[in-house]
Protein backbone atom coordinates (compact mmCIF):
# COMPACT_ATOMS: atom_id res chain seq x y z
CA UNK A 1 0.00 0.00 0.00
CA UNK A 2 1.34 3.40 -0.97
CA UNK A 3 0.67 5.68 2.02
CA UNK A 4 0.96 9.00 0.18
CA UNK A 5 -0.78 8.02 -3.02
CA UNK A 6 -3.53 5.85 -1.54
CA UNK A 7 -4.24 7.43 1.83
CA UNK A 8 -3.05 11.04 2.22
CA UNK A 9 -5.66 13.69 1.31
CA UNK A 10 -8.29 11.01 0.56
CA UNK A 11 -11.95 11.50 1.49
CA UNK A 12 -13.01 10.06 4.88
CA UNK A 13 -16.35 8.27 5.00
CA UNK A 14 -17.83 7.38 8.39
CA UNK A 15 -19.96 4.46 9.49
CA UNK A 16 -23.22 5.74 7.95
CA UNK A 17 -21.59 6.89 4.70
CA UNK A 18 -21.32 10.56 5.59
CA UNK A 19 -18.31 12.50 4.37
CA UNK A 20 -16.33 13.65 7.41
CA UNK A 21 -13.29 15.47 6.17
CA UNK A 22 -10.11 14.29 4.49
CA UNK A 23 -6.91 12.57 5.65
CA UNK A 24 -4.89 15.70 6.38
CA UNK A 25 -2.05 13.86 8.08
CA UNK A 26 -0.66 10.40 8.86
CA UNK A 27 1.09 9.72 12.19
CA UNK A 28 3.99 7.24 12.15
CA UNK A 29 5.59 5.82 15.28
CA UNK A 30 9.34 5.19 15.08
CA UNK A 31 10.62 2.22 17.07
CA UNK A 32 14.05 0.80 17.87
CA UNK A 33 15.05 -2.12 15.59
CA UNK A 34 11.51 -2.48 14.28
CA UNK A 35 9.96 -0.98 11.14
CA UNK A 36 8.09 2.31 11.76
CA UNK A 37 4.41 1.67 12.55
CA UNK A 38 1.49 3.55 11.06
CA UNK A 39 -0.23 4.72 14.25
CA UNK A 40 -3.11 6.94 13.15
CA UNK A 41 -4.51 9.42 10.64
CA UNK A 42 -5.21 13.03 11.54
CA UNK A 43 -7.58 15.66 10.26
CA UNK A 44 -8.18 19.28 11.19
CA UNK A 45 -7.30 22.79 10.07
CA UNK A 46 -4.11 22.87 12.13
CA UNK A 47 -2.83 19.71 10.44
CA UNK A 48 -3.49 21.14 6.98
CA UNK A 49 -1.98 24.46 7.93
CA UNK A 50 1.14 22.76 9.27
CA UNK A 51 1.74 21.31 5.80
CA UNK A 52 1.87 24.81 4.33
CA UNK A 53 4.07 26.42 6.98
CA UNK A 54 4.48 26.66 10.72
CA UNK A 55 3.23 30.23 10.77
CA UNK A 56 -0.07 29.11 9.19
CA UNK A 57 -0.32 26.38 11.79
CA UNK A 58 0.07 28.81 14.70
CA UNK A 59 -2.57 31.03 13.08
CA UNK A 60 -4.94 28.06 12.63
CA UNK A 61 -4.51 26.92 16.25
CA UNK A 62 -5.13 30.43 17.61
CA UNK A 63 -8.17 30.93 15.35
CA UNK A 64 -9.51 27.50 16.36
CA UNK A 65 -9.19 28.33 20.06
CA UNK A 66 -10.79 31.75 19.72
CA UNK A 67 -13.77 30.34 17.77
CA UNK A 68 -13.75 27.46 20.22
CA UNK A 69 -15.90 25.06 18.29
CA UNK A 70 -13.59 22.08 18.28
CA UNK A 71 -11.93 20.97 21.48
CA UNK A 72 -8.59 20.53 19.73
CA UNK A 73 -7.57 21.64 16.22
CA UNK A 74 -6.27 18.10 15.50
CA UNK A 75 -8.48 15.03 15.51
CA UNK A 76 -6.73 11.69 15.52
CA UNK A 77 -8.35 8.46 14.27
CA UNK A 78 -6.53 5.25 15.24
CA UNK A 79 -5.22 3.34 12.22
CA UNK A 80 -7.09 0.22 13.37
CA UNK A 81 -10.35 2.08 12.72
CA UNK A 82 -9.47 2.43 9.01
CA UNK A 83 -11.47 -0.29 7.27
CA UNK A 84 -10.79 0.21 3.59
CA UNK A 85 -8.41 2.38 1.53
CA UNK A 86 -9.98 2.32 -1.94
CA UNK A 87 -10.68 5.62 -3.68
CA UNK A 88 -12.15 6.82 -0.38
CA UNK A 89 -11.12 5.89 3.18
CA UNK A 90 -13.87 4.18 5.18
CA UNK A 91 -13.40 4.67 8.91
CA UNK A 92 -15.31 2.94 11.66
CA UNK A 93 -16.44 6.03 13.57
CA UNK A 94 -19.79 7.67 14.12
CA UNK A 95 -18.82 11.17 13.04
CA UNK A 96 -22.06 12.78 14.24
CA UNK A 97 -20.70 13.55 17.68
CA UNK A 98 -17.02 13.16 16.90
CA UNK A 99 -15.00 16.39 16.36
CA UNK A 100 -14.85 16.18 12.53
CA UNK A 101 -18.46 17.31 12.34
CA UNK A 102 -18.25 19.63 15.33
CA UNK A 103 -18.44 22.60 13.00
CA UNK A 104 -21.50 21.15 11.25
CA UNK A 105 -23.37 20.80 14.53
CA UNK A 106 -22.28 24.27 15.74
CA UNK A 107 -23.49 25.96 12.53
CA UNK A 108 -26.71 23.95 12.57
CA UNK A 109 -27.50 24.88 16.17
CA UNK A 110 -26.31 28.46 16.21
CA UNK A 111 -27.08 29.77 12.72
CA UNK A 112 -29.45 27.57 10.81
CA UNK A 113 -31.68 26.98 13.83
CA UNK A 114 -32.82 30.59 13.41
CA UNK A 115 -33.98 30.04 9.80
CA UNK A 116 -37.80 29.70 9.89
CA UNK A 117 -38.14 27.41 6.87
Amino acid at each position, binding site marked *: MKLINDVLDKQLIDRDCRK*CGRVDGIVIELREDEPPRVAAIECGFAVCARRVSERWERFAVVAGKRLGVRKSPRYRIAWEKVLDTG*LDIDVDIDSEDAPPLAWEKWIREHI*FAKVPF
Partner: protein
Amino acid sequence: MKNIGQVALGVITGIGGFLEIGTMATSAEAGAAFRYSLIWSVVLGTICLIFLIEMSGRHAAISKHSLAGAVRERFGFPFVVVPRAAELIVNLLLLGAEIGGVCFAIKLLTGVPIQLIAIPIGIIIWILIWLGTLDGIEYGTAALGMLAIAFVVAAVKYHPPLHELARGFAPAMPHHDAAHYWFLVISIIGANVSPYMLYFYSSGGIEDEWDEKSLGTNRLTAILGMGFGAATAITVIICSAHVFEPLGIRIDHYEQVAFVLVPAFGKWGVPLFAIILGVCCFGAATEVSLASAYSLAQSLGWNWAEDDKPQREARFALTYTVMLFFGGVIMATGIDPLKLTMLTMGLTAVVLPLAIIPFIIIMNDEKYMHEHTNGPIGNTVVVFTIVLTAIVALVTIPLEIMGGS
Protein backbone atom coordinates in the same frame (compact mmCIF):
# COMPACT_ATOMS: atom_id res chain seq x y z
CA MET B 1 -35.78 9.14 -22.80
CA LYS B 2 -33.52 10.10 -19.89
CA ASN B 3 -30.70 10.92 -22.29
CA ILE B 4 -32.81 13.23 -24.44
CA GLY B 5 -33.87 15.03 -21.29
CA GLN B 6 -30.22 15.33 -20.34
CA VAL B 7 -29.24 16.78 -23.72
CA ALA B 8 -32.14 19.21 -23.48
CA LEU B 9 -30.88 20.19 -20.03
CA GLY B 10 -27.40 20.71 -21.48
CA VAL B 11 -28.67 22.88 -24.33
CA ILE B 12 -30.86 24.91 -22.00
CA THR B 13 -28.02 25.29 -19.50
CA GLY B 14 -25.75 26.28 -22.36
CA ILE B 15 -27.95 29.11 -23.52
CA GLY B 16 -29.21 30.14 -20.10
CA GLY B 17 -25.88 29.63 -18.31
CA PHE B 18 -23.62 30.87 -21.05
CA LEU B 19 -25.09 34.31 -21.42
CA GLU B 20 -24.29 36.06 -18.16
CA ILE B 21 -22.98 39.45 -17.15
CA GLY B 22 -19.46 38.77 -18.40
CA THR B 23 -20.48 37.53 -21.84
CA MET B 24 -23.06 40.33 -22.23
CA ALA B 25 -20.63 43.12 -21.31
CA THR B 26 -17.68 41.83 -23.33
CA SER B 27 -19.81 40.99 -26.42
CA ALA B 28 -21.56 44.39 -26.37
CA GLU B 29 -18.27 46.25 -25.97
CA ALA B 30 -16.57 44.11 -28.66
CA GLY B 31 -19.36 44.73 -31.18
CA ALA B 32 -19.47 48.47 -30.52
CA ALA B 33 -15.70 48.97 -30.70
CA PHE B 34 -14.58 46.47 -33.36
CA ARG B 35 -17.74 45.35 -35.19
CA TYR B 36 -17.33 41.62 -36.00
CA SER B 37 -13.55 41.30 -35.76
CA LEU B 38 -13.63 39.78 -32.24
CA ILE B 39 -16.03 36.91 -33.00
CA TRP B 40 -13.05 34.58 -33.38
CA SER B 41 -12.17 34.96 -29.70
CA VAL B 42 -15.69 33.83 -28.73
CA VAL B 43 -15.28 30.78 -30.99
CA LEU B 44 -11.79 30.05 -29.59
CA GLY B 45 -12.98 30.38 -25.99
CA THR B 46 -15.99 28.17 -26.70
CA ILE B 47 -13.94 25.38 -28.32
CA CYS B 48 -11.68 25.25 -25.25
CA LEU B 49 -14.77 25.35 -23.02
CA ILE B 50 -16.49 22.50 -24.91
CA PHE B 51 -13.46 20.22 -24.38
CA LEU B 52 -13.09 21.18 -20.72
CA ILE B 53 -16.82 20.80 -20.00
CA GLU B 54 -16.85 17.40 -21.74
CA MET B 55 -13.88 16.31 -19.64
CA SER B 56 -15.48 17.55 -16.41
CA GLY B 57 -18.64 15.58 -17.22
CA ARG B 58 -16.68 12.48 -18.19
CA HIS B 59 -14.61 12.73 -14.97
CA ALA B 60 -17.81 12.97 -12.90
CA ALA B 61 -19.50 10.08 -14.74
CA ILE B 62 -16.54 7.66 -14.56
CA SER B 63 -14.77 8.43 -11.30
CA LYS B 64 -17.87 9.56 -9.37
CA HIS B 65 -15.39 11.99 -7.79
CA SER B 66 -15.57 15.74 -7.90
CA LEU B 67 -13.00 17.81 -9.80
CA ALA B 68 -11.92 19.80 -6.75
CA GLY B 69 -11.66 16.59 -4.71
CA ALA B 70 -9.55 14.82 -7.35
CA VAL B 71 -7.17 17.79 -7.59
CA ARG B 72 -6.66 17.74 -3.83
CA GLU B 73 -6.18 13.98 -3.81
CA ARG B 74 -3.64 14.07 -6.63
CA PHE B 75 -1.68 17.20 -5.73
CA GLY B 76 -2.06 17.40 -1.94
CA PHE B 77 -3.29 20.23 0.24
CA PRO B 78 -0.40 22.76 -0.14
CA PHE B 79 -0.82 22.87 -3.94
CA VAL B 80 -4.57 23.43 -3.66
CA VAL B 81 -4.55 26.36 -1.21
CA VAL B 82 -3.51 29.16 -3.62
CA PRO B 83 -5.69 28.22 -6.63
CA ARG B 84 -8.75 27.64 -4.45
CA ALA B 85 -8.29 30.95 -2.58
CA ALA B 86 -7.76 32.85 -5.86
CA GLU B 87 -10.83 31.23 -7.40
CA LEU B 88 -13.01 32.06 -4.39
CA ILE B 89 -11.96 35.72 -4.55
CA VAL B 90 -12.68 35.90 -8.29
CA ASN B 91 -16.00 34.05 -7.77
CA LEU B 92 -16.98 36.57 -5.09
CA LEU B 93 -16.32 39.50 -7.45
CA LEU B 94 -18.13 37.68 -10.27
CA LEU B 95 -21.06 37.01 -7.94
CA GLY B 96 -21.12 40.74 -7.13
CA ALA B 97 -21.20 41.53 -10.86
CA GLU B 98 -23.98 38.99 -11.49
CA ILE B 99 -26.07 40.43 -8.65
CA GLY B 100 -25.27 43.85 -10.14
CA GLY B 101 -26.71 42.62 -13.43
CA VAL B 102 -29.96 41.56 -11.77
CA CYS B 103 -30.18 44.88 -9.88
CA PHE B 104 -29.49 46.85 -13.07
CA ALA B 105 -32.27 44.96 -14.87
CA ILE B 106 -34.69 45.89 -12.07
CA LYS B 107 -33.45 49.47 -12.15
CA LEU B 108 -34.14 49.59 -15.90
CA LEU B 109 -37.72 48.43 -15.34
CA THR B 110 -38.52 50.27 -12.11
CA GLY B 111 -35.91 53.01 -11.64
CA VAL B 112 -34.98 51.71 -8.16
CA PRO B 113 -31.27 52.46 -7.50
CA ILE B 114 -28.91 49.44 -7.48
CA GLN B 115 -27.50 50.00 -3.98
CA LEU B 116 -30.95 49.59 -2.42
CA ILE B 117 -31.82 46.24 -3.95
CA ALA B 118 -28.37 44.56 -3.99
CA ILE B 119 -28.62 42.77 -0.66
CA PRO B 120 -32.36 41.89 -1.04
CA ILE B 121 -31.49 40.23 -4.38
CA GLY B 122 -28.73 38.27 -2.63
CA ILE B 123 -31.25 37.12 -0.03
CA ILE B 124 -33.80 36.09 -2.69
CA ILE B 125 -31.16 33.98 -4.48
CA TRP B 126 -30.18 32.49 -1.11
CA ILE B 127 -33.80 31.51 -0.38
CA LEU B 128 -34.09 29.90 -3.82
CA ILE B 129 -30.96 27.78 -3.26
CA TRP B 130 -31.92 27.00 0.36
CA LEU B 131 -35.33 25.65 -0.58
CA GLY B 132 -34.75 24.53 -4.17
CA THR B 133 -32.96 21.51 -5.62
CA LEU B 134 -30.17 21.59 -8.20
CA ASP B 135 -32.41 20.41 -11.07
CA GLY B 136 -35.07 22.93 -10.15
CA ILE B 137 -32.59 25.79 -10.27
CA GLU B 138 -30.85 24.58 -13.41
CA TYR B 139 -34.04 23.96 -15.40
CA GLY B 140 -35.81 27.09 -14.14
CA THR B 141 -33.16 29.72 -14.78
CA ALA B 142 -31.95 28.05 -17.97
CA ALA B 143 -35.49 27.77 -19.42
CA LEU B 144 -36.03 31.46 -18.76
CA GLY B 145 -32.60 32.03 -20.29
CA MET B 146 -34.11 30.83 -23.56
CA LEU B 147 -35.48 34.36 -23.86
CA ALA B 148 -31.99 35.14 -25.12
CA ILE B 149 -33.28 33.85 -28.47
CA ALA B 150 -34.54 37.43 -28.82
CA PHE B 151 -30.94 38.39 -29.63
CA VAL B 152 -30.90 35.82 -32.43
CA VAL B 153 -34.12 37.26 -33.83
CA ALA B 154 -32.73 40.80 -33.58
CA ALA B 155 -29.46 39.78 -35.26
CA VAL B 156 -31.40 38.29 -38.16
CA LYS B 157 -33.52 41.44 -38.37
CA TYR B 158 -30.37 43.57 -38.53
CA HIS B 159 -29.16 41.30 -41.41
CA PRO B 160 -25.42 41.86 -41.04
CA PRO B 161 -23.20 41.84 -44.21
CA LEU B 162 -22.30 38.14 -44.44
CA HIS B 163 -18.82 38.48 -45.96
CA GLU B 164 -17.73 40.89 -43.21
CA LEU B 165 -19.34 38.63 -40.62
CA ALA B 166 -17.47 35.58 -41.99
CA ARG B 167 -14.17 37.51 -41.86
CA GLY B 168 -14.80 38.07 -38.17
CA PHE B 169 -14.46 34.34 -37.52
CA ALA B 170 -10.78 34.40 -38.51
CA PRO B 171 -8.27 35.77 -35.97
CA ALA B 172 -7.02 39.16 -37.12
CA MET B 173 -4.82 41.96 -35.85
CA PRO B 174 -6.56 45.17 -34.76
CA HIS B 175 -6.51 48.26 -37.02
CA HIS B 176 -6.89 50.66 -34.08
CA ASP B 177 -6.91 50.69 -30.26
CA ALA B 178 -4.63 47.61 -29.98
CA ALA B 179 -4.60 47.66 -26.15
CA HIS B 180 -8.39 47.74 -25.94
CA TYR B 181 -8.66 45.03 -28.65
CA TRP B 182 -6.39 42.57 -26.86
CA PHE B 183 -7.91 43.30 -23.47
CA LEU B 184 -11.32 42.45 -24.95
CA VAL B 185 -9.91 39.20 -26.39
CA ILE B 186 -8.69 38.31 -22.89
CA SER B 187 -11.97 39.33 -21.26
CA ILE B 188 -14.00 37.30 -23.78
CA ILE B 189 -11.88 34.21 -23.10
CA GLY B 190 -12.14 34.95 -19.36
CA ALA B 191 -15.92 35.35 -19.67
CA ASN B 192 -16.38 32.15 -21.68
CA VAL B 193 -13.96 29.80 -19.94
CA SER B 194 -14.69 30.50 -16.29
CA PRO B 195 -13.64 27.90 -13.69
CA TYR B 196 -17.00 28.03 -11.88
CA MET B 197 -18.71 26.49 -14.94
CA LEU B 198 -16.44 23.44 -14.75
CA TYR B 199 -17.05 22.84 -11.04
CA PHE B 200 -20.79 23.42 -11.38
CA TYR B 201 -21.08 21.06 -14.35
CA SER B 202 -18.95 18.35 -12.70
CA SER B 203 -20.80 18.55 -9.38
CA GLY B 204 -24.12 18.50 -11.27
CA GLY B 205 -22.96 15.31 -13.00
CA ILE B 206 -22.31 13.66 -9.66
CA GLU B 207 -25.57 14.83 -8.08
CA ASP B 208 -27.50 13.52 -11.10
CA GLU B 209 -25.52 10.25 -10.74
CA TRP B 210 -24.18 10.09 -14.27
CA ASP B 211 -22.42 6.90 -15.24
CA GLU B 212 -20.68 5.28 -18.18
CA LYS B 213 -23.89 5.28 -20.22
CA SER B 214 -24.10 9.08 -19.95
CA LEU B 215 -20.82 9.66 -21.79
CA GLY B 216 -22.44 10.07 -25.21
CA THR B 217 -25.02 12.44 -23.79
CA ASN B 218 -22.31 14.30 -21.96
CA ARG B 219 -20.37 14.94 -25.17
CA LEU B 220 -23.54 16.01 -27.01
CA THR B 221 -24.56 18.22 -24.12
CA ALA B 222 -21.17 19.92 -24.06
CA ILE B 223 -21.11 20.58 -27.80
CA LEU B 224 -24.76 21.63 -28.26
CA GLY B 225 -25.07 23.45 -24.97
CA MET B 226 -21.91 25.53 -25.20
CA GLY B 227 -22.31 25.85 -28.97
CA PHE B 228 -25.79 27.39 -28.64
CA GLY B 229 -24.48 29.58 -25.85
CA ALA B 230 -21.63 30.85 -28.01
CA ALA B 231 -24.07 31.48 -30.89
CA THR B 232 -26.12 33.68 -28.57
CA ALA B 233 -23.00 35.60 -27.52
CA ILE B 234 -22.11 36.13 -31.19
CA THR B 235 -25.58 37.51 -31.88
CA VAL B 236 -25.00 40.07 -29.09
CA ILE B 237 -21.85 41.16 -30.93
CA ILE B 238 -23.78 41.41 -34.19
CA CYS B 239 -26.57 43.49 -32.61
CA SER B 240 -24.11 45.78 -30.84
CA ALA B 241 -22.07 46.21 -34.02
CA HIS B 242 -25.22 47.14 -35.94
CA VAL B 243 -26.67 49.59 -33.42
CA PHE B 244 -23.64 51.27 -31.81
CA GLU B 245 -20.58 51.00 -34.02
CA PRO B 246 -21.79 53.16 -36.97
CA LEU B 247 -22.55 56.03 -34.54
CA GLY B 248 -19.15 55.73 -32.87
CA ILE B 249 -20.77 54.88 -29.52
CA ARG B 250 -18.33 53.16 -27.11
CA ILE B 251 -19.87 51.10 -24.29
CA ASP B 252 -19.05 52.59 -20.87
CA HIS B 253 -22.29 51.85 -19.01
CA TYR B 254 -24.99 49.20 -19.13
CA GLU B 255 -27.53 51.98 -19.76
CA GLN B 256 -26.08 52.18 -23.27
CA VAL B 257 -26.17 48.41 -23.84
CA ALA B 258 -29.86 48.37 -22.82
CA PHE B 259 -30.66 50.13 -26.10
CA VAL B 260 -29.36 47.30 -28.28
CA LEU B 261 -32.75 45.64 -28.93
CA VAL B 262 -34.80 48.81 -29.48
CA PRO B 263 -34.29 49.05 -33.29
CA ALA B 264 -35.57 45.44 -33.59
CA PHE B 265 -38.41 45.37 -31.02
CA GLY B 266 -39.38 49.04 -30.65
CA LYS B 267 -40.74 49.89 -27.20
CA TRP B 268 -40.36 46.24 -26.15
CA GLY B 269 -36.59 46.54 -26.72
CA VAL B 270 -35.55 47.86 -23.30
CA PRO B 271 -37.94 45.74 -21.17
CA LEU B 272 -36.95 42.60 -23.11
CA PHE B 273 -33.25 43.36 -22.61
CA ALA B 274 -33.88 43.93 -18.89
CA ILE B 275 -35.72 40.60 -18.48
CA ILE B 276 -33.04 38.63 -20.39
CA LEU B 277 -30.18 40.26 -18.48
CA GLY B 278 -31.95 39.86 -15.13
CA VAL B 279 -32.83 36.20 -15.67
CA CYS B 280 -29.44 35.17 -17.05
CA CYS B 281 -27.56 36.95 -14.27
CA PHE B 282 -29.91 35.44 -11.69
CA GLY B 283 -29.16 31.95 -13.02
CA ALA B 284 -25.45 32.67 -13.20
CA ALA B 285 -25.44 34.06 -9.64
CA THR B 286 -26.95 30.82 -8.30
CA GLU B 287 -24.38 28.84 -10.32
CA VAL B 288 -21.40 30.91 -9.10
CA SER B 289 -22.39 30.73 -5.43
CA LEU B 290 -23.12 26.99 -5.65
CA ALA B 291 -19.92 26.30 -7.60
CA SER B 292 -17.88 28.08 -4.92
CA ALA B 293 -19.56 26.06 -2.17
CA TYR B 294 -19.00 22.85 -4.15
CA SER B 295 -15.30 23.48 -4.78
CA LEU B 296 -14.60 24.49 -1.17
CA ALA B 297 -16.59 21.60 0.34
CA GLN B 298 -15.04 19.06 -2.02
CA SER B 299 -11.51 20.34 -1.37
CA LEU B 300 -11.91 20.08 2.41
CA GLY B 301 -13.96 16.89 2.39
CA TRP B 302 -17.19 18.28 3.82
CA ASN B 303 -20.56 16.72 3.11
CA TRP B 304 -21.99 18.49 0.06
CA ALA B 305 -25.14 18.12 -2.01
CA GLU B 306 -27.58 20.77 -3.15
CA ASP B 307 -30.34 18.17 -3.27
CA ASP B 308 -29.90 17.36 0.43
CA LYS B 309 -31.63 19.47 3.06
CA PRO B 310 -29.26 22.32 3.98
CA GLN B 311 -29.20 21.19 7.61
CA ARG B 312 -27.46 18.00 6.57
CA GLU B 313 -24.48 19.86 5.08
CA ALA B 314 -24.24 22.96 7.21
CA ARG B 315 -20.77 24.11 6.10
CA PHE B 316 -21.65 23.73 2.40
CA ALA B 317 -24.80 25.77 2.95
CA LEU B 318 -22.95 28.34 5.06
CA THR B 319 -20.41 28.87 2.24
CA TYR B 320 -22.98 29.93 -0.34
CA THR B 321 -24.82 31.96 2.29
CA VAL B 322 -21.66 33.94 3.09
CA MET B 323 -20.78 34.28 -0.61
CA LEU B 324 -24.22 35.67 -1.48
CA PHE B 325 -24.19 38.08 1.46
CA PHE B 326 -20.80 39.56 0.53
CA GLY B 327 -21.76 39.53 -3.18
CA GLY B 328 -24.71 41.74 -2.25
CA VAL B 329 -22.49 43.94 -0.04
CA ILE B 330 -20.04 44.52 -2.92
CA MET B 331 -22.90 45.76 -5.07
CA ALA B 332 -24.34 47.84 -2.22
CA THR B 333 -21.12 49.88 -2.14
CA GLY B 334 -22.34 51.51 -5.36
CA ILE B 335 -19.46 50.26 -7.50
CA ASP B 336 -20.35 50.49 -11.21
CA PRO B 337 -21.50 47.03 -12.42
CA LEU B 338 -19.76 47.28 -15.80
CA LYS B 339 -16.40 48.33 -14.29
CA LEU B 340 -16.67 45.45 -11.76
CA THR B 341 -17.54 43.03 -14.58
CA MET B 342 -14.53 43.98 -16.69
CA LEU B 343 -12.23 43.84 -13.65
CA THR B 344 -13.55 40.34 -12.89
CA MET B 345 -13.06 39.16 -16.47
CA GLY B 346 -9.43 40.29 -16.31
CA LEU B 347 -8.87 38.51 -12.98
CA THR B 348 -10.61 35.35 -14.27
CA ALA B 349 -8.12 35.22 -17.13
CA VAL B 350 -5.26 35.41 -14.63
CA VAL B 351 -6.67 32.63 -12.42
CA LEU B 352 -7.59 30.37 -15.36
CA PRO B 353 -4.26 28.52 -15.78
CA LEU B 354 -4.34 27.50 -12.10
CA ALA B 355 -7.71 25.85 -12.70
CA ILE B 356 -6.83 24.11 -15.96
CA ILE B 357 -3.29 22.78 -15.31
CA PRO B 358 -4.58 19.94 -13.04
CA PHE B 359 -6.79 18.73 -15.94
CA ILE B 360 -3.77 17.35 -17.78
CA ILE B 361 -3.02 15.09 -14.81
CA ILE B 362 -6.39 14.00 -13.47
CA MET B 363 -7.85 13.29 -16.92
CA ASN B 364 -5.03 10.78 -17.56
CA ASP B 365 -5.14 9.03 -14.20
CA GLU B 366 -6.26 5.43 -14.79
CA LYS B 367 -7.12 5.04 -11.13
CA TYR B 368 -9.98 7.53 -11.57
CA MET B 369 -10.74 7.34 -15.30
CA HIS B 370 -10.17 3.61 -15.96
CA GLU B 371 -10.15 3.27 -19.76
CA HIS B 372 -11.78 6.65 -20.36
CA THR B 373 -8.64 8.72 -19.98
CA ASN B 374 -7.96 11.52 -22.43
CA GLY B 375 -6.96 10.66 -25.98
CA PRO B 376 -4.12 12.55 -27.71
CA ILE B 377 -6.64 15.09 -29.13
CA GLY B 378 -8.07 15.85 -25.72
CA ASN B 379 -4.60 16.25 -24.24
CA THR B 380 -3.52 18.47 -27.12
CA VAL B 381 -6.45 20.82 -26.52
CA VAL B 382 -5.78 20.92 -22.76
CA VAL B 383 -2.07 21.69 -23.26
CA PHE B 384 -3.03 24.35 -25.87
CA THR B 385 -5.57 25.86 -23.44
CA ILE B 386 -3.00 25.94 -20.65
CA VAL B 387 -0.44 27.70 -22.88
CA LEU B 388 -3.13 30.10 -24.21
CA THR B 389 -4.45 31.00 -20.75
CA ALA B 390 -0.90 31.31 -19.36
CA ILE B 391 -0.03 33.88 -22.07
CA VAL B 392 -3.38 35.59 -21.49
CA ALA B 393 -2.67 35.73 -17.74
CA LEU B 394 0.77 37.28 -18.24
CA VAL B 395 -0.47 39.82 -20.79
CA THR B 396 -3.47 40.99 -18.73
CA ILE B 397 -1.52 43.05 -16.21
CA PRO B 398 0.54 45.25 -18.59
CA LEU B 399 -2.47 45.60 -20.88
CA GLU B 400 -4.52 46.82 -17.99
CA ILE B 401 -1.93 49.46 -17.18
CA MET B 402 -2.12 50.76 -20.75
CA GLY B 403 -5.76 51.48 -20.09
CA GLY B 404 -7.08 48.55 -22.07
CA SER B 405 -10.32 48.16 -20.18
